[in-house]
């Protein structure tokens, strides 16, 4: 009997948590280095299409973003379900694209103003009509370098 009681009494030694802060800090630094700050929250659905022949967009400071897609659930009551353009944090119409590009370009340092890329982040269900209008606007303000941002993957998956 004594044997049993002795076993019950002998409690497990506590696991040392002294190295827990180190582990968590390691995780923290990992996430701090591989991620970037969100610059604007999305108001539109943004499932990008897949493509294989992609090039990475280096140097984020030279990129101007334009988001296109249908408004997310909470905005659908106000803005409807037709695909819309999002510039910075608000919805915009097609003719605002040109002035937006010019304004963004003016904010960048002089030496970068000629090497800017416009990244079009377009939902895969959008229609080309809107994209064509945006492209026309971009041509008018001479922002000719565009990047159709996509995910990496088999392009034929887009068609399903």
């Amino acid at each position: 009997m004594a044997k049993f009681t002795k076993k019950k009494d002998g409690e497990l030694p506590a696991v040392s948590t002294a190295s827990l802060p180190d582990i968590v800090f390691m995780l923290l630094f990992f996430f701090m280095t591989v991620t970037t700050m969100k610059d604007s929250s999305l108001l539109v659905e943004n499932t990008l299409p897949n493509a294989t022949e992609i090039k990475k967009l280096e140097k984020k400071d030279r990129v101007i973003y334009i988001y296109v897609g249908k408004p997310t659930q909470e905005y659908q009551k106000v803005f409807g379900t037709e695909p819309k353009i999002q510039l910075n944090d608000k919805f915009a119409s097609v003719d605002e694209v040109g002035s937006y590009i010019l304004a963004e370009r003016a904010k960048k340092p002089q030496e970068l103003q000629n090497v800017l890329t416009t990244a079009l982040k377009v939902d895969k269900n959008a229609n080309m009509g809107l994209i064509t209008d945006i492209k026309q606007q971009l041509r008018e303000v001479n922002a000719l370098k565009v990047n159709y941002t996509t995910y990496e993957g088999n392009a034929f998956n887009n068609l399903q």
Partner: protein
Amino acid sequence: MPRRKGAPEVNAGSMADIAFLLLIFFLVTTTIETDAGLDRMLPPIEPPDQDVVIRQKNIFTVNINKNGQLLVEDQLMDLKDLRNAAIAFLENGADGSCNYCKGRKDQSSSDNPTKAIISLKNDRETKYSTYITVQNELVGAYNDLRDREAQRIFGRDFTEMEAEYLNPETPSSIRDDLKDKVKRIQDMFPQKLSEAETTSN
């Protein structure tokens, strides 16, 4: 009076909590960026000074209708065949001046890769995903040809060389060397992809 044994130890028990808090903050406010895509140049808005006469056989027309069907050179085509059709057109080499082309030298198709132009037209109601797939296939056709020539001349893929050239972390000595190579391959198969204004009907 007995001397104290140094400063009292700070309790580090809550360090983990603080670190967790920071970790969660960064997890919530940041995103892992997926910024990669198809690079394209739009045509400038001013029309060229003089009209350039392009022979019809040097133009490869691709039309996408609103249902996502393809009309390539006036024939209905499946998207899966587009890449090979574009490759066949680009390296056709009808005038015989292109010594690296392996095409059929068909007289009714393009004269030379430097003259061959792919013209892409789409309807206003074409879905963006279809358009991207077509763009991807056309860029893929150029990349396949460039890769083949780069493999033959330099023993490595063009896309890989170009990625290394564009990567800002590549040392400039390697970049200078790559610049000429990339340029040489690009000149062999210049990317001439014209996008006309969309039709609406």
